[in-house]
């Protein structure tokens, strides 16, 4: 095969300039937790200062595994005054939204996503406060941005109530969960979240990360951040496996799931494996009516970043073909260190039609954007 593997094959900047794109994974952040005090009941302000948020790992502040860069951020993404990356709208506009011609940006507030905080009332209060903060500080200030409904996902009734509260508000594009939950996300205890999302007409975004209590691998805790990052792909395969076999897709045909930042090249093999085991799955779970791959093909979308990089770049095209050109949605992960530059991130040449689907049309269809 005559394929060079040495240099990326960039999409011309000028082509991007003429093509407005949708970025399905942008991370806003408060500069400090005090920034959300205006939307938080006074009792929780003091509580946070006294105790902090108790999570399912040991570090009082910061992540369980030290990140590759401070806060996992791009080193050039710190706004003037050394404010936290993602905390300054004007800087984000100048560094990312304007030059990359972002027509629609989906905000995924994950540092922190309060859904995994142990104290149930604190978790719910913080989710509500962050949702109000996203409207006040982001979506009303830049019409290109839409927020995600943060929910206390370990308390599905409270999560459903928060979704109902936001239903009909065009500031919100999706419901947001993290992938590492206390139990696999297909399990029935989480179904009220899916019912509420369907009621609100919102897809459910599942962003990699979180600490649900189970070790990061099914063989226990690994040693390194690089393994945590690797493990997100495995974890999200387990999430989809659970959602298929538990019958969440069968029970809720209107449920639409978007996996965010977990890679995508693993998807075809997972679908083949599920179908190969269809005989035993069906015998054990007779409620399932269709081949597992059909649920995945019709109810799941994947964001592209971080894109797997085959040694022979053309192999990526096979994978994208097998997943389906209508299933993949571009994302940058701004302002994090492993950000994907829309002009450089695809290591293969894409046709004009493929580009418009990946960079815009698929997300437009999923989010109902104009």
């Amino acid at each position: 095969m005559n394929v060079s593997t040495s240099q990326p094959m960039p999409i011309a900047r000028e082509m991007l300039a003429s093509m407005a794109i949708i970025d399905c994974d942008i991370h806003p952040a408060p500069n400090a937790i005090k920034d959300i005090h205006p939307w938080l009941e006074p009792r929780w302000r003091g509580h946070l200062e006294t105790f902090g948020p108790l999570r399912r790992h040991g570090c009082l502040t910061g992540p369980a595994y030290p990140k590759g860069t401070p806060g996992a951020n791009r080193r050039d993404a710190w706004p003037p005054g050394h404010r936290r990356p993602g905390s300054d709208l004007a800087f984000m506009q100048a560094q990312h939204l304007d030059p990359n011609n972002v027509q629609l940006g989906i905000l995924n507030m994950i540092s922190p996503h309060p859904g995994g905080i142990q104290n149930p009332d604190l978790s719910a209060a913080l989710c509500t406060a962050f949702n109000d903060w996203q409207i006040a500080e982001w979506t009303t200030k830049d019409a290109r941005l839409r927020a995600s409904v943060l929910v206390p996902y370990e308390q599905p009734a409270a999560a459903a109530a928060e979704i109902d509260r936001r239903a009909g508000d065009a500031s919100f594009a999706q419901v947001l969960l993290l992938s590492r939950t206390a139990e696999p996300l297909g399990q029935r205890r989480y179904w009220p979240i899916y019912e509420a999302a369907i009621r609100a007409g919102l897809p459910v975004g599942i962003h990699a990360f979180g600490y649900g209590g189970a070790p990061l691998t099914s063989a226990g805790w690994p040693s390194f951040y690089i393994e945590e990052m690797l493990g997100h792909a495995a974890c999200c395969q387990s999430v989809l496996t659970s959602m298929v076999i538990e019958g969440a897709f069968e029970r809720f045909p209107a449920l639409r799931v978007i996996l965010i930042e977990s890679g995508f090249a693993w998807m075809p093999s997972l679908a083949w494996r599920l179908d190969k085991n269809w005989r035993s799955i069906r015998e054990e779970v007779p409620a399932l009516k269709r081949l597992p791959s059909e649920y995945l093909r019709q109810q799941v979308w994947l964001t592209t970043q971080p894109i797997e990089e085959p040694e022979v770049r053309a192999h990526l095209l096979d994978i994208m073909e097998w997943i389906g050109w209508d299933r993949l949605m571009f994302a940058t992960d701004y302002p994090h260190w492993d950000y994907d530059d829309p002009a450089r991130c695809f290591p293969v040449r894409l046709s004009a039609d493929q580009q418009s689907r990946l960079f815009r049309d698929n997300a437009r269809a999923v989010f109902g954007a104009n």
Partner: protein
Amino acid sequence: MIPGAIDCDIHPALPGLKALYPYLPEIWRDLFQDQAMHELVSNSYPPASPLAFRPGSQRSHGSLAAQLEELRSQALDAWGTRLAICNCLYGVQLVFSEDLAAAIARAMNEWIAKELLDHEPRLRASIVVAPQNPGLAAEEIERCAEDRRFVQVLMLVMGDMPLGRRFYWPIYAAAERHGLPIGVHAGSSYHNPTTPTGWPSYHSEEYVNQAQAFQTQLGSLVCEGVFKKFPSLRVVLIESGVTWLPASLWRLTKFWRGLRREVPWVDRAPAELVREHVRLTLQPFDAPPRAEQLERLWEHLGSDEWLLFSTDYPHRQFDGDSPLPPGLPPAAMQKILIDNARATYPRLVEAIP
């Protein structure tokens, strides 16, 4: 089929805990009887589940002699197999007592040598070890290694800790010393939830999750520097599903480029290290539905040297009589069926006196 195939994964079953009594010290026999401990069968393969048996194999109802007879006719004769490696799965990894686990592992290996290998010259076996205590496991490897019919060391893909951890290195040191690959087989000690987000509800769900466990274990073995520390160690992934491999290597190598400062001893690209040190058994092969997809996938794998023929007998991984997934390149068959196994397991090349 090319005659003389080497089947790298078959599963003769221990008829029951009592079969180990002749090989157990009296103290354990007495304890088992006093405690009414009758069995240590793992949840991984409920004996009546749809995956457990190929149609026509009934070994659970027979004596060991009947089981061996069935194995000869259904697995060895039927497929023209010259050698087959027995991976005996039993609850060694499940128990929490290090001493009990080591005692059962040792008895298992004695049972394997005397009741299987002595009775059928085409059989070889993996050394069963109790990873709960790697020091004792290394001693057991030393003890068994003299018997050249033991060709690898058997571990499970879901244990107490990721396999790259230094805790396990005494096992790898002993294995490397004796030219024994580490065989990592599907299955769990059930000491951790069997998915990275907790316990699943269904057996079939847990089985699908074996492939994800293999992905993270490959990451652990590479990132912890096992292949740097043990440069001649080979690892064989057994019953892994196979087709997840290319995507997983692309991801591992990409993150290594970005985060290698965290693991400076990994001084070569992970995909390269894995290609050199790791092999995978053939069945189950999670194949794509269309022939042209399999052709593309074969290019993604990029080598005829990854795969070692296996049937996973008597587990039901394929329908019909042929254990070869349709569509594999004919030119690769000699390697898959024979040559790759001979290159991976030095002891398979030796004549057994």
